[in-house]
Structure formats: C-alpha cells, structure tokens
C-alpha cells in the first residue's frame, strides 16, 4: 500500500500528463463542440497539475488563471453561439480534410524527429538541462521571482518578440472583422 502510494506520488507527473492527453483526445474526437471545449478545459487543468508536480507552482497557477479561467471561457463563448449542424459549414470542413491530413502527417514526422533527437540523441544532456545561471538563482529565490528573472532578464528579447506577434495577430483579427462589416 505504502509503496504503491509512493510510486504514484513519484509518478504524479505522468498521471497528470496522461489525463491531459485524455482531455486532448476528447477535444479532438468529440462530436459536440461544447464537449470538445470541456475536453480542452480538462487538458488545461491537467497541465496545471503537471506544473504543480514539478514544483513550478507559479506556472501552474498562472496556467489555471489565464488558460483555464480566461481563454477557454472565450472559446466556450464562441462555440456556444456557433451552430455547426448547418450543412454548408460541414461541407467546408470536409473539403479541407485531405489537405489537413497531409499537413498533419508532415507536422507529426517533424515533431517526432525533433522529439527523438532531443531525448535520445547526442545533444540530449544539453537540451534537457536549464541554464546553470538560472539554476543557481533558483536555489535561493522563490518560484515567481525566478520566473520573472528568466522572462525579463535572461530571455527578454524572445519574450518581447512573442508579445509583438500576439499583438499582430490581435490587430489582424480586428482588421478582418472590421472589413467584413462594412
């Protein structure tokens, strides 16, 4: 009993990861759009659990707050008001299927290749360790502080570029919506 519990406790990350996978599978496979949003939510919650098990409490809670609390709600909002039972939209999605399949296969091959090389390849040791600079700071600093150090000192440029890309996407969405209405 004790041993089993300890084993589960050690592999909680795996448990949560499997739950996240299950949620993601539900999201893809569910016929009803709202059910797939619920699957997505479940996946997001399990990811937060993953973060919590590896000691990144701040990340986990931020995941909960931003993704589970904010973004999926907006998804749900849109999905609730969209009715996918109309034949026109269904046809649209079905026509896309072959192209999408090709893209998915290509993406999967690339992903598996990268994954294989990172974990089992020669440079695995380097890829799987954090920068020693950050590690040393993490010893004495708190979780949130370490994260902010990483974001705003170590990787400032990628972070800013990412936010600019998000901004561009936002502006683009606004432009698209605007032109349609006029």
């Amino acid at each position, binding site marked *: 009993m004790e041993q089993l519990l300890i084993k589960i406790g050690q592999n909680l990350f795996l448990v949560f990861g499997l739950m996240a996978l299950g949620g993601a599978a539900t999201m893809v496979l569910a016929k009803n759009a709202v059910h797939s949003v619920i699957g997505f939510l479940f996946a997001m919650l399990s990811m937060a659990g993953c973060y919590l098990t590896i000691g990144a409490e701040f990340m986990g809670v931020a995941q909960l707050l931003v993704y589970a609390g904010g973004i999926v*709600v907006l998804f749900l*909002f849109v999905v609730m008001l969209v009715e996918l039972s109309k034949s026109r939209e269904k046809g649209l999605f079905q026509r896309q299927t072959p192209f999408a399949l090709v893209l998915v296969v290509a993406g999967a091959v690339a992903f598996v290749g990268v994954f294989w090389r990172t974990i089992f390849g020669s440079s695995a040791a380097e890829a799987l360790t954090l920068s020693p600079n950050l590690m040393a700071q993490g010893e004495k600093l708190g979780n949130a502080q370490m994260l902010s150090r990483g974001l705003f000192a170590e990787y400032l440029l990628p972070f800013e570029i990412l936010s600019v890309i998000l901004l561009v996407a936002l502006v683009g969405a606004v432009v698209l919506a605007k032109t349609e209405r006029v």
Partner: protein
Amino acid sequence: MPTPTLTQSLIIALLQAILVVVFIFVVVPLTLYAERKVLGYLQLRLGATRVAGSLTGLTGFVNRNMWKLGKVPMLSYWRGIVMLVGDVVKMIIKEDILPTKADKFVFFIAPAISFCASVIVFAAISFVPGTLFVLPKFIPIVGGLPVSGAVGDVNVGLLWILGIASVGVYGIVLAGWASNSKYPLLGGLRSGAQIVSYEVPLTLSLLAPVVMSGSLQFSEMSRSMAVGLPYWGIVPQFLGFFIYLTCGFAETNRLPFDMPEAENELVAGFHTEYSGMKFGFFYLAEYINMTVVAALASAFFLGGPWLMPFGLHGVLNPFFTAHLPAFLVPLLCEPHAIFFVVKIIFILFVYIWVRGTIPRYRYDQVMAVAWKYLIPLTLVNLMLAAAVRYLTV
C-alpha cells in the same frame, strides 16, 4: 514530532477535507437563515418565525399558552432556525427533472463543476496558522500527529484561489448552454462576460495589499499585517477595499449585480431548468463563494485572519495570558480562529445588507462600472501602493 509517512499524511489531508466540508455545511445554511432574517429586519419585517405545525406539539403547546398569557414566547422570533433543516431535506427529496432536449452529460456536470470549484478554493484558506489540533494517541494509524489549520498553505495561496474561482464560471456557462433553452443561455452568456470582466479589477485590487506586504501566502500576509502595515489593510487601502467588495458582489452574482439569474428579465437565469438538489448545489456554491470572498477580505484588508482589530493584540495579549483563566487563553489570545470567523460573519452581513438596500443595475451599467471606473481606479490604487512600498522599504 515524527514526520508522517505518505499514507498518514494522505489520511490527515482527507480529515482536513472533511473538516472543510463540515465547516461549509454549517456555515452555508446559517447564512441562508441569516439572509432571511436580516433581509426581513432591514425591511421592518420579521423574517422566518414559524415552522410548519408550530402550534402543535410541545413547542406549540408552550408557545400557545405563552400567547394566551399575553407574553411573547422566548423562542418566538428565532424559531425559523429549524427551517434551514427543512429547506435542505426538502431540496434533497424533491423530484429531479432532466429536460428531454438537454445535453445530459453537461447538464449533469455543470453543478458539480460549480460546487467543486468553490469547495476546492477552501483548500488554500487557513483558519489557524500552524497546528489546529493534535490527534489523540489511541487512533490506529494517525495517532499523535498534528492537523494543520489549512489543507494546503501554498506559497501562491492568493493566485490559487483566484485561479480555481475562475474555473467556477464554467459551471454557470455550461449550465446555461446545456439546458437547451433561451433564458438559461442568455444568463450563462451574461455571467461569463460579467465574471471575466470583473476578475480584472478584483485581482488588481487584491494585488495592492500583496505589493505592500510582499507575499502571496496567507500566513505571511497576516504576519506582515501585524508588523508592517498600520494595523489594518483597510486604512491605507481604503479605496482598494471598496473596489474589492464591489467586485466580490459581482463575482458571486449577488444583488445588485445578479445579472446571471436576473429574476426580472431571465426567468431565473442559468439555473432555470434545474430542480431539486442540482439547483441546491448552485445555491450552495453561491454561498460558499460568498464565504470565500469574505475570508479573502478579512485576510487582506481587515488585519489578517487571526488578529484582533486595531492592533489590540499587542496590548491585550500579555494581559490576557497573565490574568485570564487557562481555558480562555487559547480562545482569546493569538492565534485565534474566532476573530477570523467574526470578520467573515461581518462581511457576510454586509453582503445581505447591500442586497437589501441597493436596487439592481442594468446590464450595460454593470459592464460600464467594471471597465470605465473600477479598472482605472484599481490601476491608480496599485501604482500608489507600489510607490508607498518603494518609499518605505
């Protein structure tokens, strides 16, 4: 003190969870009863005073004879307290209707999400710092181990609470959608928009005391409140406290911001199609959320959970420990859960008070209050708090 093994700590965690649930099931019906009574008193009414068949049986016999003698029976105006038992039992044995065209899975899961989210929030609220009580030795596995005052006093307690509370909105939105009916859908949409937009000023207003005390942890917060801030967080954070309360009303869907269940426009909002105990779970969740908001307010603004008001603990504690009889010392001296509970009760009273006083807002007004007034104000407030922190520390 021995380090508990994993099994033991799991059992203790289970015990704590049961304690939390018991606390909820004591506090929530009492709040319900208080709502009836206080709302009545605010409107010069009496609220619940009679239970069914109160003129028969022993109490009825006593009461009737007292009335005949021209006297008011002792329990006359408080008899309604039995009514909450009646409410709960009735709701459990009521028929549970599942609409034919409802989405059965989502319809079933929505109240569960709502209820579970509000209960899980309680995990991070600690009633007493450190040990609540030590289990007696004769209990087989977990004898002699301490039970701490919170299920988990995580170092990101505030964020944890906010995160889980924001998951609670799914209960409402999904309930609205799953009923497959117009009014619930509208109620769900409204509540989604309202809660998402009020979460911003709520979080920002809570950040100001966090900036001033420098920690997200509950116990740390109250410790700094005892030393650093001038006694109560409400004194430097006057504006923040009121913004927080307003957002708390909106987050828990209470009047004057009861947009999701607007009885005047949308039959009963998101739970129109729910009956029996499923509706009861929404009801419970609303009151638990109220309690959580009250607990947060007492932790962040009303001088930390376990301290006496106005910094009196520094003056009175030595006096108490020296002069009071021994059994009263743990009750009145620091740390005491009593003041925490008293503060929670006060905030709950304020909830009902405001409900009995202020009329409802229109929906666009609700949104305008959030985006045009509260968010700029909280930003200013946060800047001020940061400036004070920068200058003093």
